[in-house]
């Protein structure tokens, strides 16, 4: 049985009448990369802060690495980057990491290893105040890596990174995953999460509305067909895949919930029936689509009238960036 590294039970945080995190129960298993998703203000960061002992829960409980959340012994075995990286502006990146290494009880050379790991050695002598947002973010990740933690908690680690920085971060996460590192990753980059994470938890309005393997959330692949005449095409598809599997689309096509391996047989049947086949392709739901379905069902998918399938509306509405 896989060990649970992070578990929460009914975790709740209230600020006066406002409930920031509402009865959240989640589990992160050792060695997995767990994506923690949700729109801005959904309660992700507050949840992560509670796991690290920065914020006290008002209800429920949380355990990290077998200890009460916030226990210094557990926090010391956890690397974390929460929101914007906070460092001394007058110190260099290297000295900032040395200070943090000392707080961790580590020797100064731990800072050098962490700098090297995030590719910051060349700029380590510059003052933190002179860094770009992306470089500050890298230093934050370096601080999280100090002491080779058993668990990494990364809250929006790609914030402010340019495309090259995002690619570097993706490689770093892949390396960590390959090393069996347990990572709890909060991110707006659903494409990144889809590629990197094993399981995800989706939080909306403070409540955990889904927790599952990504493959299970996305469900089985389907076939998308556009052919004319439509009525004839629907009849052929119904005969080949079963009528219950065929759903007409608004754009004159149809979705067929069937194994994509059925595609050659379907194409032959359509052609033999004299139907003109314009498009036939296998299609999987993206994590982004699943996310919007879930959050819309929970009453929060963006501004009214926004098309959740549109990356632009996604960015504008729920603060998500798709890749």
């Amino acid at each position, binding site marked *: 049985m896989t060990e649970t590294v992070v578990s929460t039970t009914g975790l709740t945080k209230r600020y006066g009448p406002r409930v920031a995190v509402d009865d959240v129960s989640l589990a992160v298993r050792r060695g997995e990369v767990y994506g923690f998703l949700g729109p801005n203000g959904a309660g992700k960061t507050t949840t992560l802060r509670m796991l690290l002992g920065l914020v006290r829960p008002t209800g429920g409980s949380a355990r990290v690495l077998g200890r009460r959340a916030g226990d210094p*012994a557990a926090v010391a075995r956890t690397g974390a980057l929460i*929101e914007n990286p906070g460092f001394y502006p007058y110190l260099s990146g290297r000295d900032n990491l040395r200070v943090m290494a000392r707080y961790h009880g580590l020797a100064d050379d731990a800072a050098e290893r962490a700098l090297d790991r995030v590719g910051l050695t060349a700029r380590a002598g510059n003052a933190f105040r002179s860094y770009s947002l992306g470089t500050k973010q890298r230093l934050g990740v370096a601080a999280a890596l100090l002491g080779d933690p058993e668990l990494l908690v990364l809250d929006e680690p790609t914030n402010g990174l340019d495309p090259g920085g995002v690619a570097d971060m993706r490689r770093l996460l892949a390396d960590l995953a390959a090393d069996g590192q347990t990572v709890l990753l909060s991110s707006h980059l659903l494409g990144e999460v889809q590629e990197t994470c094993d399981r995800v938890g989706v939080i909306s309005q403070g409540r955990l509305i889904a927790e599952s393997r990504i493959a299970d959330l996305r469900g089985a692949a389907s076939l998308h067909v556009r052919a004319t005449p439509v009525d004839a095409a629907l009849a052929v598809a119904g005969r080949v895949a079963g009528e219950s599997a065929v759903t007409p689309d608004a754009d004159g096509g149809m979705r067929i919930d069937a194994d994509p391996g059925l595609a050659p047989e379907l194409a032959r049947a359509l052609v033999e029936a004299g139907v003109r086949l314009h498009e036939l392709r296998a299609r999987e739901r993206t994590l982004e689509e699943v996310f919007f379905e879930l959050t819309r069902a929970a009453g929060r998918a963006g501004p009214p009238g926004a098309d959740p399938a549109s990356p632009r509306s996604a960015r504008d509405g729920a603060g998500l960036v798709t890749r």
Partner: protein
Amino acid sequence: MSAARVPLLASARAELLRLRRWPALWVMLGVGMLLDLLFGYVFNYLGYRSGSGSEVNERTPPDQILHGLLPGGVPETTLAGMPLFGGAILLLLGALTIGGGYGWGTWKTVLTQGPGRASAYGGTLAALATVVVTLVTAVFLVNFGAALLVSVLESQAPHWPPAADVARAYGAALLIYAMWTAAGVLAGTLARGPALAVGLGLVWALAVENLLRGVANVLGAVAPVADVLPGTAAGSLAGGLGATAFADDGTPGVLTTLDAGPAALLLAVYTAVFALAAGALILRRDV
């Protein structure tokens, strides 16, 4: 057991590293030292040489001025500058050290390294205590150097003060500075940032306390409060150990309201209460 394995010592080492590289710390310490030399020695010596009296009162007899400038007067001269001007700088130091952590977001980063809140805060206090001890030691050494120079310039035999007087003054200086530093720490914690803490702290130390003591002179009901204010205790300790009170043409901030013993006790209580109150907030509050 190595320092790295004891969270409190590890935190103190970390905090000392970042304080040592903090330009603002050296500016504050430099300004404090400069004020001490200027008001304790340079202006008084110039006044003595020109025969126009001390920097605060021209009626001070020349012999009295010279006594304060020679090695034998180092304990009193050093203490005289601490309750008000020196204390204000230490209040700044405490407020900026703690408040800056909130402003820069470094408390969050520090606590996610796992030292624990008590150790992180304790380490910060230990680092500040190191700074205070170093500063007080440096001030005494510099003042002895200045006094020795005056004795040479004036061809006076350097009569050194009794060791017990120096030790008492040194302890009093530590207590006065520790209290103001702790007050700054509490202000920085309450304000969760440096700006408000520094502003309100200085207004309190430099203005409000003096106003309350002034009000107490005409409104007796205020006197019991004014007599036990932090600044009153600091000024009384300096006054009780020989520094000339402002009311007797001495240095601003030096008082004779309380005897040295009760003043020292009150300072110790204030230091502990301020440090513990700030610690309780840091332990309990969300970051």
